[in-house]
């Protein structure tokens, strides 16, 4: 019994809805429902189909098709708008002398499926075409994603290359085989040469540019060390040496390991010609300044020393004159005025000497008995100024105090002499407070004198500034005092009210710590 008339054909049609059956005249005697949907009622094979494969050895004859029946057939459908091809095979049924074609559309892209009028339900469930369409869609998405990523990657690559090209310094990247992976426009301006050098070594470049190959080899050896040992390396290139265009490039090469462990060398070069010139200028000026300072220090020292000696000789002679008994009162007054003027001059010279010492000498660190020093300096100033003063000293000493004795003396001398001079004329009072701990020493000096007018308060530390009629000095005292505090890395504050007095606080670091370290190390 022929399959054509058997009930099994219905089941087979479900599996092959594009099947058709040919009789010996190549007349289509039966079509599957899906084939019917796209081909209509055409009944002759030759008018409905043309061979695509096999093509060369086959004829539009029943027996010829029968010969090739074991092979894969591709048939192109004729007379319809869309190019649809069927892929399948023929099977000959002997009893009925019929050829059955079992196959389905040969779809190679989504486009092949478009406008065919076919739907998924027209295919057998197992049909590969459906999986193919899904796979094709998936591949299209993947391809689009890849293209997007590629575009993104190219964009980023271009962005960074452009960025590196606009950086005003030479940038290059070399791989572990010491070949240039990237080099920017600043490093090589000629685009052709820049492209050429990618994938080449420094030696290749040196040969191309006729550079000294011995130096090039040394540098390449150093590049290798960067890759092998991770050592950083730098050198300087000088171009147009000895000409007005001479320039120096500082080149630094450092190792870089990427996230997947690949080793690279990152290299950059900066034009340091201007920096080098400026540095040389600064160096020369500094040397000149140092020379001038030394000369000035020498001058100040010799001037102060040379002037003080004859001044002391004059003071000695005044002492001799004062001892003469026959001096008349007028002469006695003149001599006293001479002594007073010479003393002030001596004081000024002393100040200049102090300033010179403060600027010139290194800071020392010695133990200081501060209370004793305060009392000594106070007594000396009191004797000089011949005043009667109520003097109080309070102390809170929790540590030894280490600092520079010479500068502490300058600071105390300035604070106490001012306190004595400017304290109240009727009932003068000077109060000193000392507070020492491991870290700091705070010295506070207060008087009950005329105080400092607000308009003078910002100016009192200026050199040669004198803010009061009572000032008998040179105007250098507070200036030197401030310089000494700064030299000791201390700080100072003051408050002052006219006709009530002034209060100066100096806070200095206690150098105890370095002494303890020294003791421990010893």
């Amino acid at each position, binding site marked *: 019994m022929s399959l054509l008339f058997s009930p099994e054909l219905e089941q087979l049609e479900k599996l092959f809805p594009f099947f058709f059956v040919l009789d010996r005249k190549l007349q289509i005697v039966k079509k599957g429902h899906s084939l019917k949907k796209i081909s209509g009622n055409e009944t002759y094979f030759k008018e409905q189909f043309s061979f695509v494969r096999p093509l060369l050895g086959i004829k539009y004859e029943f027996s010829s098709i029968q010969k090739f029946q*074991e092979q894969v057939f591709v048939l192109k459908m004729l007379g319809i708008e869309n190019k649809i091809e069927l892929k399948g095979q023929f099977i000959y049924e002997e009893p009925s002398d019929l050829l059955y074609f079992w196959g389905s559309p040969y779809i190679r892209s989504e486009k092949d499926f478009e406008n065919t009028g076919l739907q998924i339900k027209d295919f057998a469930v197992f049909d590969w075409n459906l999986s193919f369409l899904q796979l094709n869609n998936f591949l299209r998405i993947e391809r689009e994603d890849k293209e997007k990523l590629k575009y993104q990657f190219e964009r980023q690559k271009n962005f960074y290359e452009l960025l590196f090209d606009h950086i005003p310094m030479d940038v290059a990247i070399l791989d572990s085989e010491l070949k240039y992976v990237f080099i920017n426009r600043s490093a090589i301006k000629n685009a052709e040469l820049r492209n050429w050098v990618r994938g080449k070594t420094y030696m290749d470049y040196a040969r191309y540019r006729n550079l000294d190959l011995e130096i090039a080899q040394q540098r390449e050896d150093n590049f290798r060390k960067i890759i092998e040992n991770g050592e950083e390396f730098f050198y300087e290139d000088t171009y147009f040496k000895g000409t007005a265009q001479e320039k120096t490039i500082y080149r630094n090469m450092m190792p870089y390991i990427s996230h997947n462990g690949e080793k690279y060398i990152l290299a950059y070069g900066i034009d340091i010609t201007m920096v080098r010139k400026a540095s040389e200028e600064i160096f020369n000026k500094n040397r000149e300044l140092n020379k001038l300072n030394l000369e000035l220090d020498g001058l100040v020292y010799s001037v102060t020393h040379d002037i003080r000696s004859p001044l002391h000789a004059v003071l000695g002679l005044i002492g001799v004159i004062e001892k003469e008994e026959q001096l008349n009162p007028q002469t006695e007054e003149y001599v006293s005025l001479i002594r007073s003027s010479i003393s002030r001059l001596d004081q000024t010279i002393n100040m200049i000497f102090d300033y010179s010492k403060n600027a010139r000498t290194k800071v020392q660190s010695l133990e200081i008995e501060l209370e004793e020093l305060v009392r000594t300096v106070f007594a000396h100033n009191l004797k000089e100024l011949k005043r009667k003063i109520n003097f109080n000293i309070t102390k809170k000493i929790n540590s030894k105090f280490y600092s520079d004795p010479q500068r502490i003396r300058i600071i105390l001398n300035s604070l106490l002499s001012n306190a004595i001079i400017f304290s109240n004329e009727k009932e003068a009072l000077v109060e000193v407070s000392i507070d020492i701990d491991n870290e700091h020493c705070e010295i506070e000096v207060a008087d009950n004198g005329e105080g400092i007018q607000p308009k003078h308060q910002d100016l009192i530390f200026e050199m040669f500034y004198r803010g009061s009629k009572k000032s008998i000095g040179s105007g250098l005292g507070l200036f030197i005092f401030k310089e000494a505090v700064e030299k000791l890395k201390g700080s100072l504050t003051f408050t002052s009210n006219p006709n009530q007095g002034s209060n100066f606080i100096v806070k200095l670091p206690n150098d105890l710590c370095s002494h303890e370290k020294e003791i421990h190390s010893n």
Partner: protein
Amino acid sequence: MGHVSDSFGNEAWERLRIKAGVVDEFFLSNKIYEDQITFDLVAAASEILSVDVDTLLRSFGKYWVLKIAKEKYGKLMEYAGNNFIEFMDQLPNFHSRVMLLYPEIIPPEFLKERIDDKSFLLHYYSKRIGLGSFMTGLIEGLAQMYNAECEIEQVANEITEISHIVYKVTLK
């Protein structure tokens, strides 16, 4: 390329590549090349190596099966059959399936007609003229791959717009 460089050295390949005016230094397995490149290379090889074209094509056909096909399509070929005859039954569809994957290429067509258990006729249809000897080499190579000894006789050679050659293959 592989056949020439393996049998005659890389230098010989370079010489014939330049003589044939072929720009490509190496060929990709899945890329489709112009037929003319093949014919130019064969002509140049014949001249440089002093071997006639038919002998060269035949040895190349054998080399292709035993070296290239084994290397590139080894597993596929294993699945094609347990012996030479079974493989030859699948030969037509092997080529048809290649066409299904690469619709733009035109592989040759085959028709195998059984004579008896030990012999068959193999019809070879191709749009390329002049590759009959190459086909002979392929059959020889396939037989050797399956350790089969056979006699190959070209019983018909009809050239029209296409080449239709009939081989009678008899297993010994």
